[in-house]
């Protein structure tokens, strides 16, 4: 039985057993359901083996929504624990595990796939391409990401969750202080998912550089595509640091090396340093696509061309360099001298400038615009003031001397939620609402949508503004409880109520999807929002080849010009279209990676070696495989086009 002991959860509780049962039952229900409705073949042919960027995008979306709920449950548990002094709902160990997984799940397995969903779905459509540059690699990216996500999520029922914070600083994360396999999960699951992210970064950069429609110069790309381009450039330069960092951490934990130890020449602070060399660019990877989405939405519903296109692009290019120049602001208190801290204080404040430029551009776009208050626009309007508040507190934190006071208090927690929730999460939901009709052929209900936006904002303000105050009063982050005499209890109760309201708003989002599936009109045309860029120029639902004829572009808002100024988008006649074949290879490789990761987490070396050979075998197989894709004939295209056009009338 010794062998199986290691899979037991070291610090179990009723909640964990309950989720084991819950997860088990859900799995059985899903498998039975698919079998009962005979959907295995459909799943395999249409989804698991797909290389279509739209479908891969939707799979990313599903993962992101699922993880939003997992992370959300974590969040509510934490807020409930802190809502009263000396609460015993979670003990310290569980609290550690919950805030650790909350952070990782939200950043790496919610926000990242959410933006990748938009990259996948939108980039090829916005630039008038048929797919991404390397469709099969794109599927591989997804499956690596998915398996990393899966591996991470089984940790709390098999072997124990990581508990050293999402930053996983050494020496806390070493074998002595974190003896459970939890931190192994951290090192290896994020590694696998991160590989997927890096591969897709290369894929999107190539797609944007090489596959734009004729006439679409770089400076004629829609703003979302620009933001995606810059974000992916940052991915390609920041993620290798994470890869190396996690590899070194894995070696320290599994093979007894001394990179981050406190003796034998190791340097524990190097972890914090390298983590933020990746970590700060990472927050810009998340926010830039969000900015891109807001730009699209604001231009559409102010019925105006985006103000200051060039300055928007320049500010993003500046951010792409500057985001690599500020990482020390995450550890001003680590012991380096005042000289170093001053340098990084200044660079950090400087990065607020290009961000400010963008805020002003949006305001000038709204100026004299004919504003239409749809749900996506409402989110954007709520975003501007709330995000600005987060930016201002960021600049407060950027002053290194003052940061000795704020660092690792709830003030910091309030800051980053203040930029991430109104910045990233609102953008994701606004973008989802905006593009929903393009993906699924009906709109989400506007009334429920606006209720959701307002509730979420009220909940947000109640949940996070009090943290600024308790933080300044000295409430430390990651502390699992506090005593009555600190006087924090009132404000923490308010936070809990706010978190509850936010939870309700997310439930309302789900209800909205359900409601709209049942009642929304299916007769909405291709362009229900009267929008401006190419993704709205094709049919809804989008055919697999995206555009029957490659569009011709002459401005940043080609579709708007086609509608209002007589620009001709589709010249020429339909020709046969070359498309990639589906393939099971990415999924199989992903599965092998999953087993490999699992074997590594539990140090089951024979299995790790066998799966490693399997991975190499897959790569060799792919190198010799000949697959030239297939052609869609002109007749077939014409038939599809006629059908899609007919569906509208």
């Amino acid at each position, binding site marked *: 039985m010794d062998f199986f002991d290691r899979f037991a959860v070291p610090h179990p509780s009723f909640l964990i057993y309950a989720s084991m049962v819950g997860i088990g039952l859900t799995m059985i229900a899903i498998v039975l359901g698919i079998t009962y409705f005979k959907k295995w073949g459909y799943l395999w042919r249409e989804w698991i083996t797909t290389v279509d960027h739209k479908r891969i995008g939707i799979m990313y979306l599903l993962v992101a929504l699922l993880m939003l709920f997992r992370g959300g449950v974590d969040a509510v548990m934490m807020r409930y624990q802190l809502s009263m002094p000396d609460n015993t709902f979670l003990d310290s160990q569980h609290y550690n595990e919950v805030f650790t997984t909350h952070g990782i799940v939200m950043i790496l397995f919610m926000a990242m796939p959410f933006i990748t969903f938009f990259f996948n779905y939108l980039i090829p459509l916005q630039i008038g391409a048929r797919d991404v540059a390397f469709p099969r690699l794109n599927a591989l990216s997804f499956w690596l990401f998915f398996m990393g996500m899966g591996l991470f999520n089984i940790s709390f029922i098999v072997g124990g969750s990581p508990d050293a914070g999402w930053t996983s600083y050494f020496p806390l994360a070493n074998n002595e202080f974190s003896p459970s396999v939890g931190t192994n999960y951290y090192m290896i699951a994020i590694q696998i998912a991160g590989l997927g992210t890096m591969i897709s970064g290369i894929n999107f950069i190539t797609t944007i550089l090489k596959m734009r429609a004729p006439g679409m110069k770089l400076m004629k790309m829609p703003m979302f595509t620009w933001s995606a381009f810059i974000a992916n450039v940052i991915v390609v330069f920041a993620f290798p640091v994470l890869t190396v960092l996690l590899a070194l951490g894995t070696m320290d934990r599994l093979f007894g090396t001394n990179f981050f130890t406190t003796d034998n020449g190791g340097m524990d602070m190097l972890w914090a340093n390298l983590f933020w060399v990746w970590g700060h660019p990472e927050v810009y990877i998340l926010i830039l696509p969000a900015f891109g989405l807001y730009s699209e939405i604001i231009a559409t519903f102010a019925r105006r061309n985006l103000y200051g296109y060039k300055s928007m692009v320049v500010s993003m290019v500046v951010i792409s360099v500057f985001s690599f120049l500020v990482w020390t602001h995450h550890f001003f208190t680590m012991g*380096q*001298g005042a000289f170093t801290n001053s340098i990084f204080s200044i660079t950090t404040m400087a990065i607020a400038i290009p961000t400010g430029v963008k805020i002003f551009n949006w305001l000038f776009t709204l100026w004299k615009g004919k504003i239409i208050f749809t749900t996506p626009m409402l989110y954007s309007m709520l975003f501007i003031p709330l995000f600005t508040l987060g930016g201002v507190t960021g600049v407060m934190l950027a002053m290194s001397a003052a940061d000795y006071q704020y660092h690792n208090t709830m003030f910091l927690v309030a800051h980053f939620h203040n930029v991430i929730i109104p910045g990233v999460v609102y953008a994701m939901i606004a973008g989802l609402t905006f593009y929903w009709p393009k993906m699924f052929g009906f709109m989400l209900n506007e009334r429920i949508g606006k209720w959701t936006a307002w509730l979420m904002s009220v909940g947000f303000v109640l949940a996070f503004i009090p943290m600024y105050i308790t933080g300044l009063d000295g409430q430390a982050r990651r502390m699992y409880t506090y005593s009555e005499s600190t006087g924090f209890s009132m404000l923490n109760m308010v936070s809990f109520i706010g978190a509850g309201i936010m939870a309700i708003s997310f439930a309302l989002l789900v209800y909205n999807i359900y409601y709209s599936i049942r009642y929304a009109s299916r007769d909405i045309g291709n362009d229900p929002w009267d929008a401006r860029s190419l993704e709205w120029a094709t049919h809804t639902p989008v055919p697999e080849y995206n555009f029957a004829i490659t569009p011709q572009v002459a401005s940043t808002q080609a579709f708007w010009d086609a509608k209002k100024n007589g620009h001709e988008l589709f010249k020429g006649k339909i020709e046969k279209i070359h498309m990639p074949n589906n393939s099971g290879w990415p999924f199989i490789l992903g599965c092998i990676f999953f087993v490999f990761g699992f074997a590594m987490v539990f140090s089951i070396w024979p299995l790790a070696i066998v799966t490693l050979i399997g991975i190499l075998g897959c790569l060799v197989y792919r190198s010799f495989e000949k697959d030239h894709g297939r052609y869609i004939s002109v007749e077939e295209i014409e038939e599809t086009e006629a059908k899609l056009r007919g569906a509208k009338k």
Partner: protein
Amino acid sequence: MKELFPVKQVMGFVFSLILTAVALMVYFTDMSFSIGMTILLVTAFIQAGLQLVVFMHAGETNDKNSIYLNVYYGLIIALITIFGTLLILVWDM
């Protein structure tokens, strides 16, 4: 005949062999650590640049500019990271 003979590549190959030989010297001769490291670093960077330009054809397509831009961007970021880290953890600790 002149166009057919790859002068550039042959010269590149010879040059990279020389660089390798120089680097190997550090192992076989007895010199101070800092001189040895300097030689290794210099030869390594020249070697990498040589490979990129001569054998990986960095400058021979229309993408020349994006390729070099990318390389420079990567170099800048790598240098910032290395020297920033040295500053934080060694020079100003």
